[in-house]
């Protein structure tokens, strides 16, 4: 590269400071020989440098940063979310713990719904009452014509399925000793009555009961005997009679006989009423 008047300035300082070497140094020397006025300029400034000046800056302390700064715990957004969730869970947990362990804070129910006795449930009365399957059969036949209001009552009756608990056996023994002779006497009287009506051809049959009916009653009562013996409630005895004897009048007559024999107390009106209401509403409805 040729050094000329245009570009000599960029090589001048290197030349003055002795940093120009080789080909460029020769070029520079040749250029200065050609231009002595420029060489005179360079001679005047070759060592014109500023001298060292010490100036103190008074505000250093304000620029310094303290070294022993307390460590700051960096709170990130994720940490904030985590702490919020944890605190919420803690509050909920404490609240539940407090409610659970403080009886005064228990919520009182507005209403207690007790489950209705189902068909499968077993109800043992004191003393236990055992109803014959025939009674249940009779109630089933009647069930079709029963209005919805009687549904609950029927469910209760269905629940009274035959059971043979220890208590029921004891009761059975107790009633057998008491009622068996009486019932045997009643059956014997009916049998005698039937025999009398059959043997005396002139004698008219019973105005209420035909001989065949009596036989049917006695036959039907025979398997019920153990059951009847253990039943003390008059209403249930009447119901047995009603289910066994389809005709209500005949059943009433049978009940009357039972009253005469001393098996049932003399409360016919109550008996009829109970029978109407409880067991055979269709009979009275037809009437």
């Amino acid at each position, binding site marked *: 590269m040729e050094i000329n008047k245009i570009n000599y*300035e960029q090589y001048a*300082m290197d030349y003055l400071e002795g940093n120009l070497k080789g080909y460029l140094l020769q070029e520079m020397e040749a250029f200065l020989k050609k231009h002595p006025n420029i060489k005179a300029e360079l001679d005047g*400034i070759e*060592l014109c440098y*500023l001298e060292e000046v010490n*100036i103190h*800056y008074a505000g250093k302390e304000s*620029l310094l940063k303290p070294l022993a700064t307390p460590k700051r715990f960096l709170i990130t957004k994720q940490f904030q979310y985590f702490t919020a969730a944890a605190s919420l869970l803690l509050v909920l947990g404490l609240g539940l713990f407090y409610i659970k362990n403080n009886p005064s804070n228990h919520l009182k129910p507005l209403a207690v719904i007790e489950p209705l006795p189902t068909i499968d449930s077993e109800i043992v009365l004191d003393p236990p009452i055992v109803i014959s399957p025939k009674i249940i059969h009779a109630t089933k036949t009647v069930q079709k014509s029963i209005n919805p209001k009687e549904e609950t009552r029927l469910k209760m009756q269905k629940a009274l399925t035959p059971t043979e608990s220890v208590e029921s056996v004891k009761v059975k023994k107790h009633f057998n000793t008491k009622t068996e002779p009486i019932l045997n006497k009643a059956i014997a009287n009916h049998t005698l009555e039937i025999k009398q009506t059959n043997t005396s051809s002139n004698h008219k049959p019973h105005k209420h009961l035909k001989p065949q009916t009596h036989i049917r009653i006695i036959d039907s009562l025979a398997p019920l005997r153990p059951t009847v013996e253990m039943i003390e409630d008059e209403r249930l005895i009447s119901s047995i009679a009603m289910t066994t004897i389809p005709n209500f009048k005949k059943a009433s007559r049978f009940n009357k006989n039972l009253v005469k024999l001393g098996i049932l107390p003399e409360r016919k009106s109550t008996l009829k009423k109970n029978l109407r209401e409880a067991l055979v509403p269709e009979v009275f409805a037809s009437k």
Partner: protein
Amino acid sequence: MTRKEYNNCVQLFADRLFRFAIKKTCDEARARDIVQQSFEKLWLKHEEVNFSKAKAYLFTTAHNFFIDEYRKNKKIQHTAIVPEFQENRYDNFDLKDTLEIALKQLSDIQKTVVLLRDYEGYSYKEIAEICNLSEAQVKVYIFRARKKMQQLLISMGISRKKVVYGN
């Protein structure tokens, strides 16, 4: 750069930066502001700036502040009034003061490169990086600055021998 290294930068370079600023502005208050702003910027970027580059970063920042100020106040020129040459003052005239006066006659960029070269000892390449110039440009600016200073000294009657060796 750590906090400790930053504090070291303050201890090492605050005086130098202040000298550079005050020589450039000829105004102590402005020079203080420039130093403070430069160190504030360094602290903001202290995690990114290496300690070995801190000095260059400080001077680059200061130089940029000067450029910004110059652009804002283009019409305002902070040039010192050159005292008229008086024959009777020559003998008592201090070379140091004469050079200071000559320095004030330089343009901003000439002043900057001369200050960085003479006071801080930066190479032409480093000065080029700080001032965002080419190396050749820096050399030309410095040569012209020295030539101008020399002319002033000659006009004041100070011979070459006196300039070099003082009295």
